[in-house]
């Protein structure tokens, strides 16, 4: 874990208000695992002040690059999106606990992404196929509409089974990714229960977690929280989790951002 000033190799639009940023980062590319994030400095002086947490969308160890896929939401991401090749991005990481990869390929693997939440699932799917060797992930991706469905082709290239849902039906089914999930469970003939990985807005993750918990499926979710330090020092980013009979706050940046859906108090 170190602080890096990374040269920007490319920055391109990858959908509505969504940018893909490729950074030269040989050390970081080797160090980071799917589900981990980096903490990105977006401004020049003191406004905006804080770094922005962004998941690793891809790490290419051979090329020595990492890719971030992010949506322009507010002031920090707008400044990040204005940076050009030749400039630098100051980041530190890798941070947090990533997704636990399956040990074997026995179970079907479901990757559920909502909106820009799909970003880290690409790296996850690649690592599952490269290191564990499983090729049969099923992607279920949701978005508001066709335009905001990010990197569909990229995902399609990773796995043949890709199912889409949009709020307005402009692409795939009309509805939510949770409906695709429920449908899958209803129609699945597989005897082995699937491993579920989900990332997206909290209401979606909650819905997914409730379904997964009901069916007693192993389910990992990547949560978002407002972060200051990103390293576990400030207690800003807490998530409520179960603690024996009670509950407690743990740090999203340190104990997370990936949590077992059963542990989280939704």
């Amino acid at each position, binding site marked *: 874990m170190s602080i890096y000033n990374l040269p920007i190799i490319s920055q391109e639009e990858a959908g509505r208000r969504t940018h893909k940023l490729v950074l030269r980062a040989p050390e970081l590319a080797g160090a980071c695992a799917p589900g981990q994030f980096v903490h990105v400095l977006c401004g020049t002086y*003191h406004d905006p002040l804080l770094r922005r947490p962004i998941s690793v969308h891809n790490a290419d160890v051979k090329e020595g690059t990492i890719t971030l896929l992010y949506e322009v939401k507010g002031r920090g991401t707008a400044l990040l999106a204005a940076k050009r090749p030749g400039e630098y991005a100051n980041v530190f990481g890798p941070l947090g606990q990533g997704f636990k990869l399956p040990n074997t390929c026995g179970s079907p693997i479901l990757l559920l992404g909502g909106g820009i939440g799909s970003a880290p699932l690409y790296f996850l799917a690649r690592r599952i196929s490269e290191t564990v060797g499983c090729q049969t992930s099923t992607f279920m991706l949701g978005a508001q509409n066709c335009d905001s469905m990010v990197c569909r082709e990229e995902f399609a290239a990773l796995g043949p089974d890709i199912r889409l849902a949009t709020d307005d039906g402009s692409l795939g089914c009309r509805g939510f990714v949770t409906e695709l999930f429920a449908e899958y469970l209803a129609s699945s003939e597989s005897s082995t229960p699937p491993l579920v990985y989900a990332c997206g807005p909290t209401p979606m993750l909650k819905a997914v977690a409730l379904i997964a918990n009901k069916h007693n499926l192993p389910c990992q979710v990547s949560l978002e929280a407002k972060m200051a*330090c990103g*390293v576990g*020092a*400030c207690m*800003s*980013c*807490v998530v409520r989790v179960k603690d024996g009979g009670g509950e407690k706050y743990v740090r999203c940046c340190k104990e997370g951002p990936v949590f077992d859906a059963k542990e989280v108090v939704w």
Partner: protein
Amino acid sequence: MVAENNRLKTEIAGISMKNPVMVASGTFGFGREYADFINIEELGAIVTKGTSLLPWPGNPPDRIAETPAGMLNAIGLQNDGVESLISEKLPWLRQFDVAVIVNVVGKTLDEYAEVARRLDGVPGICGLEINISCPNVKEGCIAFGTDAGMTAAVVGSVKAATKLPVIPKLSPNVTDIAAMAHVCEDSGADAVSLINTLMGTSIDAETRTFRLANITGGLSGPAIKPVALRMVWQAAGAVSIPVIGMGGISCAQDAVEFMLAGASAVQVGTANFINPNAGPKIARGIDDYLARHNFEHVKDIVGAVKSNNL
């Protein structure tokens, strides 16, 4: 390396430090999280997260909100309590050659005194910073720091409970900071530190809700620097015990300004979040400043701002 530099050696209230740059309470945990990034032995001192008698759960999220050149926090002093500090955090910190100051919080006079009592004699602690100023806990705490009588009572009872140097940390949410500093001195404080955060709030216009679950929070970061610098200058003018200055320090120049205003040492808080290496970098930068301006020792710049000719 700055660590071995005599020009920066500082002693405050009997606490020896390699340099006058500490990391501020609540922004550096107990040092462990940042030890991966930086050499924490390059710091003058680590001030721990606020520690209470029993564990405190803290406030619900959202606990922070970004503001122009600043941030609001309402952590609510989540911490595992003094016993966990003694049995887990301090043994780890003792591996390092760096001064450790424990930030103490409580909801009653007795709690403050009891935490101080338990820490008395524990190896690896150089001093106690008494947080009478956190604006984010419903009971007690800030009430102590905005009332002169309560402040005197807390400082007095902590002093009676420990042989360690006692450093009350002042709240900026008062009409007269010099008077508060003075009360601390009179009550036996060995030094004062300031400022804690300014009380503020943030509202999301779109949802018409407060951004912090706690409604109000404490403002820190560069935004508050002019207020902090003014208060440090006023406090330093009012007392003869050392003053530790903080509030928005993010570079060596900022730190020098606080020392010129009368601070014998400084703390770096929010800046750690932006650059984990801020503390060591500021220590080196102060050293450069001393060299460039031909000062023999960092103490020579303390209070050295010239009063304007009016």
